[in-house]
């Protein structure tokens, strides 16, 4: 197990690369979900506003 983590003396290089990869993947997932949520909230407000304008115009 220890030899596995030592990566033949390249542990710092190998594991930092994998850590960066995990970080970039996590950022991608988080950022995509957040951007969808923001767009959705904005769109919902827009729908609510359109509905409000429509009902105020009604006789």
């Amino acid at each position, binding site marked *: 197990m220890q030899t596995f983590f030592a*990566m*033949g003396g390249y542990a710092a290089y190998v594991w930092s690369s994998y850590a*960066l*990869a995990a970080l970039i993947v996590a950022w991608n997932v988080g950022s995509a979900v957040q951007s969808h949520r*923001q*767009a959705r909230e904005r769109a919902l407000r827009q*729908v*609510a506003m*359109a509905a409000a304008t429509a009902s105020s115009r009604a006789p």
Partner: protein
Amino acid sequence: MGTWTWFHKLASPPHFYRIAGKMIPWYAIPAVVLIVCGVYGGIVLAPADYQQGDAFRIVYVHAPAAWLSLLCYTVMATAAAVGLVWRIKLAHALAAATAPIGASFALLCLATGSIWGRPMWGTWWTWDARLTSQLILLFLYLGYQALRSAYDDITKADRASAVLAVVGVVNVPIIHFSVTWWNSLHQGATVIRAGGPAMPPSMLIPLILCFFGFTFLYAALACVRVQAEVLRRERNAHWLQDAMGARGAKE
């Protein structure tokens, strides 16, 4: 249903929004399975390289990141061109959705390449053709995003940034062939090359799994981001309500 009817239906934002939403698990689940298997095969099962020892295992994140950065740029430029020529909003939405994903993987490629270069070449960075053209790719992505954010009007942002994306596509073949055209510290093509892959199956199979895993990951991420881009572009309250099931907003 004729091809054109199908195409028009697909290009209609509400329809596309729903399809993209339904497709997410079909891309995300294979992405997770493939990447987990590929990384396990790469760092546990594959033997150490006879020249590079265990340092070569960086390839399982470095090469798929490089592949994704090029795939994303190609998708982005193609979608941008389609958007410019046929004025399809959805194509611009796909281009805008792809840019941040591609940028992040171009950065990952450069960072892991730099970490790999230190023990193998004795330097973090060198101004050689492969490294420089990949750095230009990152700058193209950043320029594309900066240009988009400079416009308040999304239609203007789409058109201006699309021109940049299309012009920048010349860099993609330059990156790919840079190791052949110029003397480079960077190793030549290992997987896709004349005479077959220069790797034994025990090293190659995990790498191929990672390539496919990253590609599926892109598809899943693009679906989520393209949904957001479609929502940003849509002014039609009826379908927004439809697409999001926002019945509460009516009252």
